[in-house]
């Protein structure tokens, strides 16, 4: 069995450079690669293009990279949960490309699946369609969206094995399996790393072929953005 394990975050991040394109799994703060982001925020790399559904919050998630002005461009579907993001966007130092969430997911999936582009109805007739090819299928107009890939994809799973196979938990799966496929180098960090053979092959969400490096995450803070509860009556 091919062994994908790296023993520390430095080895996991080997080869990251300024001006690269990175993908980050996660929806809000759920399922984000916390350890990779924290380590990247300590490196002297700048001019990054980051593809992620959201952009973190102040002092956590991608907010850490924004704070050090390491990101030059964000490709996302929903942003602005943090003040630093807003400041940089309004002052023009941060470029932002907003993409419908389903198109973003599919563009990552396509990138990893060898599909260069696809037609989708999402965004037709809106600003998102500007400059894009429009074609009618079954009497309905669609716009052409192109695939996305990245120099590095950083994903986070619940459990993983030494062969790189991954299992996600709850809604922390989100963009992680799609971005895992679309990275030239995909780094998976996991809450629990086990020897190959311990995970049930029937239960694998992301097969190890898509993962180049797998790492046991040191610690997970798992912040909750909107803690909502009901009373016990």
């Amino acid at each position, binding site marked *: 069995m091919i062994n994908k394990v790296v023993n520390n975050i430095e080895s996991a991040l080997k080869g990251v450079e300024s001006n690269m394109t990175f993908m980050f799994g996660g*929806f809000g703060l759920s*399922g984000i690669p916390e350890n990779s982001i924290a380590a990247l925020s300590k490196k002297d790399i700048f001019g990054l293009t980051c593809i992620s559904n959201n952009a973190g919050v102040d002092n956590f998630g991608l907010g850490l990279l924004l704070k050090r002005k390491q990101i030059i461009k964000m490709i996302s579907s929903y*942003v*602005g949960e943090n003040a630093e993001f807003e400041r940089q966007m309004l002052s023009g130092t941060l470029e932002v490309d907003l993409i419908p969430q389903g198109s973003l997911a599919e563009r990552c999936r396509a990138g990893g699946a060898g599909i260069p582009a696809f037609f989708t109805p999402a965004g037709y*007739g*809106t*600003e998102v369609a500007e400059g894009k090819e429009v074609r009618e299928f079954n009497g309905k107009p669609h716009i052409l969206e192109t695939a996305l890939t990245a120099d590095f994809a950083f994903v986070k799973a619940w459990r993983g094995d030494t062969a790189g196979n991954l299992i996600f938990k709850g809604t922390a799966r989100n963009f992680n*399996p799609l971005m895992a496929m679309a990275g030239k180098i995909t780094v998976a960090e996991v809450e629990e790393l086990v020897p190959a053979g311990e995970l049930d092959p029937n239960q694998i969400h992301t097969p190890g072929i898509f993962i180049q490096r797998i790492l046991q995450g040191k610690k997970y803070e798992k912040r909750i953005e909107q803690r909502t*509860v009901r*009373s016990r009556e």
Partner: protein
Amino acid sequence: MSLDKNKIAQRIAQELEHNMYVNLGIGIPTLVANYIPKGIDVEFQSENGVLGMGPFPFEGEEDADLINAGKQTITMMPGAALFDSATSFAMIRGRHVQLTVLGAMEVSENGDIANWKIPGKMVKGMGGAMDLVASAENIIVAMMHTNRKGESKILKKCQLPITGVNCVKKIVTNLAVLEVTKNGFKLLERAPGVSLEEIIKATEAELIIEEEIPEMIL
């Protein structure tokens, strides 16, 4: 009396049909889940990757790995399923989700909706709204009839950047229930105690009024 947000949600809940898969947007739409009519089973889809979403968790049982599209902590119903974002939007784009309820800033008489951007203000993004409105079989908008300045949100033509074209089927506001037809907005129901004149006055677009307009039954 014009309806409050809960009453709008309660009226929309009457549109739910047995065995429907439903996606509820943030805001008033979320409240629809509190008013599911007796004897009706529906499953709620949240586009971040869960089908069979349940109520908020009890205090102390929140799980950071289990949230809805509004990033709120949730629970799952028995029989729930989890999936990635591409599969989630396959459900949406592929028309497997039968009803989408969402909020809006403006709706036009041909069914265009604007709900993602106000030029000149901070733009946060469309999230999943464009995918949802481009594909849903049935879209119901839940919103107040007028904006904070008292201006009609039901227009001949949207003034704000649109989210999707020709997609809204029905609108439930604090004043009325409207259907989007080929010929424009058709007034279906009035909020209890709200007069026809009040609705017409609060609406910029033309209204098709074919017969006696009944009050909503809540």
